[in-house]
């Protein structure tokens, strides 16, 4: 992610410090993180009430598919970070290529998620079949809605690539946030026992 490539606080030539992108986008990150934290608290509370049923539901998921989802999305964060670095250096052609790579990896994630949903539905696990799958489909679907918005955000990034570094970083912040939410969802749904 960008934060692993560059320090969160970037020091500019003039010596002024700033956070990546529009500070306004960080309001979104903070607020949406609070909303997702609330969703996770509700999930974890329900899990404590029906632990055995949730464990059974989790056992129906393919852990390797969840890992693959995570690797794909984290790779998309890496390509996004490269895009930001290229744009900062004024290398717009490779930055554009990395933006398209990011979108491609996002699309692969989406396809993997649909494949997983279809598999589960064929096994009889639907939105209404059990409490675990109610949360599973809710959390993965609301994350996918964020991802779909991410494609629009990537479109804005490509459009404004050479015009505004601030917008490039703002779009990257959004994409990394969506990835961050997925890592938490993956941990809660696939890993926590």
């Amino acid at each position, binding site marked *: 992610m960008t934060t692993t490539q560059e320090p969160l606080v*970037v*020091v*500019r*030539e003039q010596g002024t410090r*700033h956070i990546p992108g*529009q*500070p*306004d*986008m960080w*309001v*979104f990150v903070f*607020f*949406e993180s609070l*909303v997702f934290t*609330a*969703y996770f608290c*509700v999930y974890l509370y*329900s899990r404590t009430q029906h632990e055995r049923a949730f464990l059974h539901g989790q056992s129906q998921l393919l852990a390797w598919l969840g890992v693959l989802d995570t690797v794909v999305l984290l790779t998309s964060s890496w390509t996004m970070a490269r895009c930001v670095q290229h744009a*900062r250096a004024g290398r717009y052609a490779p930055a554009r290529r990395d933006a398209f790579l990011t979108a491609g990896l996002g699309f692969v994630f989406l396809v993997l998620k649909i494949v997983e949903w279809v598999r589960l539905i064929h096994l009889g696990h639907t*939105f*209404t079949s059990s*409490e675990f799958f*109610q*949360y599973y489909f*809710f959390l993965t679907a*609301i994350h996918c*809605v*964020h991802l779909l*918005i991410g494609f629009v955000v990537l479109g804005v990034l490509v459009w404004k690539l050479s*015009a*505004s*570094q*601030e917008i490039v970083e703002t779009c990257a912040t959004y994409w990394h946030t969506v990835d961050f939410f997925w890592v938490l969802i993956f941990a809660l749904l696939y890993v926590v026992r």
Partner: protein
Amino acid sequence: MMRPAILDDPKRELWLAWYATVGFYSLYTVVFFIITRTQPPGKPWYDPSQVVGWFAGRHDGLLIGFALIFVLGGLSATSLALITYSIRRMSVSRAFAYSYLILYAVAAVPGFLFICTAMTVGAMRPERSPALLQWLYDLAFLSFSGTMGVFLIGSLIWMTAILLDKNHVFPKWFGYLNLCNALTEVVVAPSWIFHEGALAWNGAIAWWINVVVFGLYTGAFIYLLRSMILREDFGTGPLPGLDSKVWRTIVPVEATV
């Protein structure tokens, strides 16, 4: 006798609309949460006899509260008008303002008026069969909670206008807050399916989290509409700044290392 200063204030109509907006949302909160006690919503799993008891327990409150809404609910138009005015003040196409106005005016019917009508019918006709009262109960809460999605596009229109605007009518963070609000309106949709749990119409996700987000969002836009009126210069260019730490002027793009 001295003439009151407000009468000569060119912003008097805007202030009138703003105070009417504050009045409407205050009325809305008092009526739904205190007088009628229709919020938090009733239990979605109630059987017909329990629904009859629910209506009986709130009979007077439903009649008084929704009578107030039928008389004064039109004040909501001032809120819509002020928001439409704010979008007209932006540097974006007027199509944004008109789309927002039409969409919210239409969405208020299922999202706001249906519950008032259905609950009043239930309170006024207690002798009807319990099955019919249960039908009204379901109609009221499902239309109120389940149709939040119709407001979604309105939030996205406002968000897009704010993000494209060059007149600095609203800070960009409020544009993004519109997106947060729109995304929580999406999660109310499953209340059509579930009778209990976090996604039912009274559930932790579909109601409690949603209402907290909506409350913060509403508070933010009422405050920002006030800021807009204070800064209004009746021109067409960027609005002048406000001496407030909350307000962030747009930082020009700078080259980074």
